[in-house]
């Protein structure tokens, strides 16, 4: 019996984001909200562990009220219970403020062996919440997992680093962050989707977690976003058309002049 907490972030599907050239802003209207990709791997892994060892999976999502859709999908994939942690006062949270809220939620659940989450979120790629949460809960962390094996209170994790693969051993309770390679998330069956609506869900706010105003959102953050601008490439944009041979000749000549091509 393994008690697992899986963390789920709902994100805008970044590949669908467009830049509005006139206002130089991002167009988010009509962009679908999805479960961040590695969090989906985390859900799948939790379900596979439960299928093997038995137990219970609780999914927690901190986010806007729309994130209940992400939790519904998690329930359909095999999660047993879902908690949406939402509060307008969370607005402006940095990764420290997010980790603090999640730490309070995890502490409220109290009884768990394993926390699993994605190594990064698809929108921010900050890699921060997992290690920060592990620190706040005083848990060992296993990052970039490609395989998780549990034996009694022992856990063995295969990790993917840039230049090597590692096998690391430790004890539960602990926190594991996963990368996409770990598994192929399932598509829930129609039956599972139907059944998911009967599973228990809760809604927690900052008050339910006994967090004070100073700990929440912008106030509770350590990092401050000063400004954000639409990212643009400042490149020469010297584009050649016409006869392929002429174009290639012009290109190689220019690259030689730039000193990036020998000859």
């Amino acid at each position, binding site marked *: 019996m393994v008690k697992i907490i899986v963390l789920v972030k709902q994100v805008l599907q*970044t*590949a669908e*984001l467009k*830049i509005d050239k006139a206002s130089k802003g*991002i167009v988010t209207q009509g962009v679908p909200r999805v479960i961040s990709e590695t969090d989906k791997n985390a859900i799948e892994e939790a379900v596979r562990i439960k299928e093997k060892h038995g137990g219970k999976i609780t999914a927690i999502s901190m986010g806007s009220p729309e994130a209940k859709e992400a939790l519904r999908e998690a329930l359909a994939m095999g999660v047993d219970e879902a908690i949406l942690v939402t509060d307008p006062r969370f607005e402006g949270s940095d990764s*420290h403020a997010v*980790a603090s809220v999640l730490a309070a939620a995890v502490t409220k659940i109290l009884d768990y062996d394993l926390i699993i989450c994605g190594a*990064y979120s*698809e*929108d*921010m*790629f*900050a*890699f*921060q919440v*997992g*290690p*920060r949460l592990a*620190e*706040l809960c005083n848990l*060992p*962390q*296993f*990052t970039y997992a490609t395989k998780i094996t549990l034996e009694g209170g022992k856990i*063995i994790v295969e990790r993917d*680093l*840039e*230049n*090597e*693969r*590692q096998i*690391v051993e*430790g*004890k539960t309770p602990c926190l594991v962050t996963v990368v*996409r*390679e770990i598994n192929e998330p399932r598509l829930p069956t129609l039956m599972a989707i139907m059944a998911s609506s009967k599973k228990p869900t809760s809604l927690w706010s900052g008050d339910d977690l006994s967090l004070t105003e100073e700990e929440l959102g912008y106030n509770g*953050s*350590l*990092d401050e*976003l*000063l*400004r*954000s*601008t639409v*990212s643009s*490439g400042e*490149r*020469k*944009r*010297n*584009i*050649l058309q016409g006869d*392929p041979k002429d174009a*290639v000749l012009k*290109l*190689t000549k220019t*690259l030689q002049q730039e000193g990036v*091509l*020998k*000859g």
Partner: protein
Amino acid sequence: MAQEKRDVWVFSEQPQHAFELLGKGKALSAELGSELVTLASTQSSADEYIRHGADKVLLVNNPLLEEFHVDTYTDALSELANEHKPEVILIGSTRNGLELAPRLAERLKTGCVTEATKIELDADKKFLLMDRVAMGGNIMETHISRSKPQIATVPKGLFSQNPPDPSRKGQVIVTQPKIKPPATKLLEKKPKEVKGVKLSDASIIVSFGRGVRKKEDLVLIEDFAKAIGGAIGCSRPIAEDLRWLPEEQYIGLSGQKVNPKLYFACGISGQIQHLTGIRNSKVIVSINNDPKAPIFEFSDYGIVGDLYVILPILTDAVRQLAKS
């Protein structure tokens, strides 16, 4: 009253990466009128850091620091930071660095900006302005930290190292911060097999995307890469969906981030995810048959045309140049 020292600290478990951080750290500490400090676990690496610009090295002779472990390095750096109160800590943005920096920042109750793309002091030299990309590469954000030390992780290749100066002198301080044995144990490690030049080290990269229609046509790319002496990379769908190349070879926000002198994008449309991985390239050249492909907006040079026609001509031209 004691004057604030405002020292700049750098750390990476990869020496070459640490030297780059020392290069940037030197500029920052000069502006702040403070010292550049790093952590070492052996005398020889301490000397190496001094040659590359460190004013002071905190030398910790503790077997627990021999191999990188997030637990022991968080202990060591947090203990030392609490004692010496640095202004800034720059950490190499390897996967090790990326699990260390947030855990360290949380222990020190400070902010952290991961994968910074630009770091500079504000006009009054009060804050570090740290840029990073967000929203899948669409947004460039500028952050400051409300508390100190101000921590950022920096990808390899963003800054350049200063040439080592054998005559340079620095201070080595032997210190023993309290370090607990790690909570997890490494059982085994296997280096990854990399064929040819590693993308992160390559000075020329030939990269391709969906514009290559069949796996057999890869020979076009291979021939060109061989002629020009470049490493081969690809866009995400080639590695993740088609699996024509291993995952280590796809370039993008979630994959490899590269910084070659010359980058060729062949048949790559230019999703923002891919562009974010190549933004540190010096010169970007693209070949695409769609004149409206977003990649052209992000290129220095481009040829609108069929890569099946262009590449053989280009390969020939490069071969001729090599002969002449």
